[in-house]
Structure formats: C-alpha cells, structure tokens
C-alpha cells in the first residue's frame, strides 16, 4: 500500500469528518440543553447553503475577475448572510414549533422536528426549484502542494474552522456567564431557574448558536461537495447525528471526535473494503462502539437515581 495514498485518504477523511463535526456540534448543543433530537438541523444547513449561494452569485459580478477581492468579499459576505438568516430561522423555529412543546414528551418534539424538516425541504423546493445549484467554493478552487500530496484550500479551511469553532465553544461554555448558564440549564432546568437563569432565553441562545454553526457547516459542506438541492442537508444531518452519538451526545469534544472519526471511517471503508457497503460499515462501527462504550466515546454515563 502506498503511503501517499493512505495520507491522501486520511486528509479527505479529516475534511469530510470536520464538516460532520461542525454539524454534530449543533446537534449536541441542542440535545444537551433541550434534550431533543433536532432532525431539522440538517435542513438548516441546506438553507445556509442556498443563502450563501445567492449572496455570492449576487455579489461576485461587482468585482474585477481574478482579483483577491472577488474571491474574499463575496465569500465572507455570503457566509455572514447565511449565518444571520440561519440564526433567525433557528430561533423562529424554536419559538414557533418547539417552545410550545417544552412540557410535552420528547417524542412529540421529535415528530415536530421531523415536520419542520419536511417543511423546510418542501419550502426550498418551491422557492428555489429542484434544479441543482452548483456552489463555488468559498476559497476558490485551488490546492496546496505538500510534497506528493495535494490538499485543497477548502479542506484546509474546513479543518481549521472546525478546530477554531470547537475551541471557541469550549471557551464560551466554560468561561462566559451565558455559557455557564447553558451548562446549568442542561444539568438541571428547575434548579437553574431557581438560581435566576432565564431558561427560555438560554435555550433560544443555544438554538441561535447551533443554527449559526449549521450555516457555517453548510457553506463548508457545499464548498467541498458543491451540488445544492433542497434535500442536500438530510444525509449529512443523519450522519452528523450519528457522529454526535458516536462521540457521546451532549459532549462538545465528543461531537468533534465523533465527526472526525466518522469521516475517516467512511472514506477508508469505501477505499479498502467496498463502496457498495460504505454506509453499512460506518453504521456497523458505530454499533460496535456503542456496545463497548454505551454512552459514546466521550459521553458520561449517568447513573440512574432510584
């Protein structure tokens, strides 16, 4: 086996995994705090992709072809626009669809989330048509040559973004007041309320952050795999959910680790075993891991109280 090829696959796995990881972070935060599986998360990614696509194609005409500004300005503006729209969307969804169900069973919330997911997909179909849009990578197309390896700028940006986001989130939840409030709410809603924490505001904030991350994930995912359709978000959504559980749902480093491993396993399973059974292998690994560590790789096993 050629070492260059193995390294090449590893980098591709890291790149795919980083995207899964960013999406999984959104899943895991929402799960940690609202104890709900937000199946509409994947579709927020799709919305982010579309917003960025339209912002970029709207702006790119205004700059000189090939100049630095022509790449950077639309990309940054597009990403910001996607983040703003997705944040608003996330908060609105939470207010309208999930908040009234705060007291309901988690299954009721799950079904509602699925309804929201169908809604977003079909609204996107009506608004933006089924004809796929081809996304221009935010970094432009090009790659860095490291010895025999060629690593695309998108890959570099994705991995870097993933690390930065994880560090920032960790700092946010452990250092800032709001972050601490989030942790408190996820630990015990009632007690947090008694301590004077505004639980509803904290949950809204979590959805806002999760959705903004989904927008970033959308932009990066579309940069790496540039075909955008109304159903683009659903499969990465499910994979990222798997990744979040893989790493231990509720845990931020867990989501990161789970995402990266899932991406790497997916690529290597396809490369060395069978592309026909790629997904089967990914899920089989997941099952084995959960059997050995029932709460995921970095998850805490909560002792049941009697």
């Amino acid at each position: 086996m050629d070492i260059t090829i193995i390294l090449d696959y590893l980098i591709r796995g890291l790149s795919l995994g980083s995207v899964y990881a960013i999406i999984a972070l959104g899943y895991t935060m929402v799960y940690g705090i609202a104890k709900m599986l937000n199946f509409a998360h994947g579709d927020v990614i799709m919305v982010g992709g579309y917003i960025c696509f339209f912002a970029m194609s709207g702006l790119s005409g205004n700059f000189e072809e090939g100049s630095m500004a022509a790449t950077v300005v639309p990309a940054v503006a597009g990403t910001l626009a996607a983040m703003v729209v997705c944040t608003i969307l996330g908060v609105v969804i939470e207010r309208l669809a999930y908040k009234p169900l705060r007291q309901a069973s988690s299954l009721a919330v799950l079904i509602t989330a699925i309804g929201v997911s169908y809604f977003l997909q079909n609204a996107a179909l009506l608004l933006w048509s089924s004809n796929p849009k081809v996304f221009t990578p935010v970094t432009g197309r090009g790659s860095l040559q490291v010895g025999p390896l060629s690593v695309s700028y998108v890959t570099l940006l994705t991995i870097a973004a993933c690390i930065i986001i994880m560090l920032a989130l960790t700092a946010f939840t452990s250092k800032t007041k709001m972050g601490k409030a989030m942790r408190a709410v996820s630990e015990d809603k009632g007690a947090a309320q008694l301590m004077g924490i505004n639980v509803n505001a904290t949950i809204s904030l979590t959805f806002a952050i999760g959705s903004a991350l989904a927008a970033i994930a959308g932009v990066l995912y579309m940069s790496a795999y540039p075909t955008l359709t109304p159903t683009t978000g659903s499969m990465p959504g499910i994979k990222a959910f798997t990744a979040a559980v893989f790493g231990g749902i509720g845990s931020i480093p867990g989501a990161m680790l789970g995402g990266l491993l899932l991406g790497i396993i997916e690529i290597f399973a396809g490369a060395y075993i069978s592309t026909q059974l790629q997904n089967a292998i990914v899920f089989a690994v997941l099952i084995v891991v959960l059997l050995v560590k029932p709460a995921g790789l970095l998850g805490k096993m909560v002792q049941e109280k009697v």
Partner: protein
Amino acid sequence: MNSKKFLAFTMAAAMTLSLAACGGDSGSASSTGDASGAGSTSTVESTGSAFKIGGTGPLTGTAAIYGLAAQRGAQIAVDEIQEAGGDIQFELNYQDDQNVPETAVNAYNNLKSWGMQISLGSVTSQPGIATSVYNNEDRIFALTPSASSPDVIEGKDNVFQMCFSDPNQGLASAQYISEQGLGENIYIIWKNDDVYSTGIKDQFVAEAEELGLNVVGDSTFTDDTANDFTVQLTDAQQKGADLIFLPMYYTPASLILTQADAMGYEPAFFGVDGMDGILTMDGFDASLAEGVMLLTPFNADAEDEATQAFVAEYESRYGETPNQFAADAYDCIYALKLALETAGCTPDMSAEEINDALVEVFPTITLTGLTGDGEGITWDSTGAVSKAPKGMVIQDGAYVGMD
C-alpha cells in the same frame, strides 16, 4: 376513555372526514377542468373536446428535477397544440409520485378517477415498472417519456417508450467507445441503488467484453454516499484508467467532474443521456465539463428551428434550459397527436377504444421530434423506440457533434 385519547380520536375523525370531503371535491372539480388551480393542468375546458392525458413523476423529493422537467415539456407541447388549433386537443394532468412505486400507483389511480384516457406512464423507471402493469391491466395506453428500464415495456403490448432502454444505452456506449477508439483502460462509476444506472452498466460490461474493450475496474455509490467520490476517482487513477464511464444522472456527475479536477486527475469522461443537463446547472463551471462525451438524443443547442423554439419557450416560462426529460415528454405529446390523427380517434372514445387503436397504429408512425436527430422516431410492437443517439462532446460550454 381519557380526555387525551378522546381529543386525538375526534381530531383524527375530523381529519378523515374532511379528507373524504376533499377527495370528493377534487373529483368533481377536476371534471370541469378546474384543477388547473393545481398549476399542472392545461386551461382547456374539458367539454369532451380534448383527450385527457395523465402522467406520474416525481414533482417533489430528491428526483423532483426529472418529474418537473417532463411535466413542463409536455405542458408546452399541449399549449402549442391548443394555440395552433385543430381537431386534436389535450388536457394534461401530472401527478406527483415522489419516485416511489407505491405513491406512483396512488397517483395513477387518482388520474384514473379523473378520467384519464391516455397515459404518459411514469417519468422514472421504478415507478414506471409499477404503473405500466396497471396501464396494461386497465387497458389504458401509455407512452412514457423517460422510464427506460426494459421491465417497463416487457410483456405489455400497450406500453411504449420515448427514451432509449437502459441496455441499449449501455450497448451503444460500448460500441461507440470501441468504434471511435476513445479509451484504452475504461473505469466505470455507477450508482448501485438505481435501476437506470445498474441497467446501463450491466449491458455495457457485457458488450465491452464482446468488443474486447479493457474495463479495468468499477466502483459504486448510493444516494446516501453521493457526496464524496474521491475514493472512486483515486481507485480509477490507481488502475490507470484513461476513460471513465458515468452511467448516471448529471447531479452526481457534476460532483465527480469537480472532484477529479480538484485532484488534478484528467481522464476522458463518457456519459449517457442522463448527463444531459449538466451545462444548465445554475453556477456550474462549464470548463470542468470540457471534453466530456455523451450519447444523448437531445441537444438544447441544436440549430434546428423546432429545438430553438422549444428551448426559448421553456426558458421564458421556467427560467431554466430544458433537459432531455423535457424534450422527451414534449415529443411524447406530439407522438400521441400523430398517432391519434392516424388512427382517427376522437375524444369521446373510451380509454380502451383509444388504447386498441393506438396499439395498432404506433408501430407504423414516424415522428420527427426534438429527440429524433432528423431521421425520425419509430417504434416496434414491443414498445421499444428506435432513434439515433447522438454522440456529443462538450466544447467551450456547448455540445458539438462528434461525428
């Protein structure tokens, strides 16, 4: 019974009742041609002067692009015919099947209760296999624009295809590659949860062996893994492939082209009719498709008047360039018109009478359609189409004929 259950029950009951009411409404409404509110029916009043044509296709979901294209292509033909006047007029009703056989059968039944006299079958293969059986049992003539699996027409005397069958495409592709000497080492990437892709690939492999083409390997993907193709491309590169055969639709194909480019891997690519449409994708960098070859019955850049008029009309209505699904569906309507004229059918005939007449007449007609390459389109009595596939190569963002 506790209160919760009681409410759930009342709601469910209310829902069912209102649905039943809806069902009744839609039945009576559409018979007066009012279902055009749906946006999927033509404006021709159903006064018995128009043939009722129905078709199913994915209008929502992952495959919506194909169903919508067919619906729109057919609608343009219906409207043109109406504008031109004449004895034969159509009323078109397309129903969503989400590319699921079960839903397609529901959609078909819906059309049947609407009073469908002639069917456009289904747009995609798997639903097409299902609905064609019902077409055959109910004796409603079907001409499918694009359900290309041979299973769709096999054993059914009244189901015809407008598109090449999958094995024929595989066969033609292998022959074309062999004749033109396009590649020494051929690699195939195909979609292993898809009837269309599998059908073409199987026949291609068989024919390639016959012709002595060197197929160095193949690999697959599914709907769930249709994002990362680097594994497949690296494998092709390792095996020294200089031509990659892509029996698939253009959405995954565009990703393959993009990722091959990012890897700096530049083999020749050869596609099938599903590849048509790649140049019309919003935002697609046509330079990536430079040199891609494909066999397609339709070319949106063709110079002839009919094609240009159709493309202009489609673009002005829907803001997109039509693909082969739209063109095939457009041709279907004209083929039916020609056949009905030849057979002397009138709209007051029953579906079965029309069916019997069309089954007789279809193998005898020749249609000069958009997808016929000037030589015309004919059918044999099994329902299979015969038309010349065009070998195209993409140069400077446009198709150029290869021979």
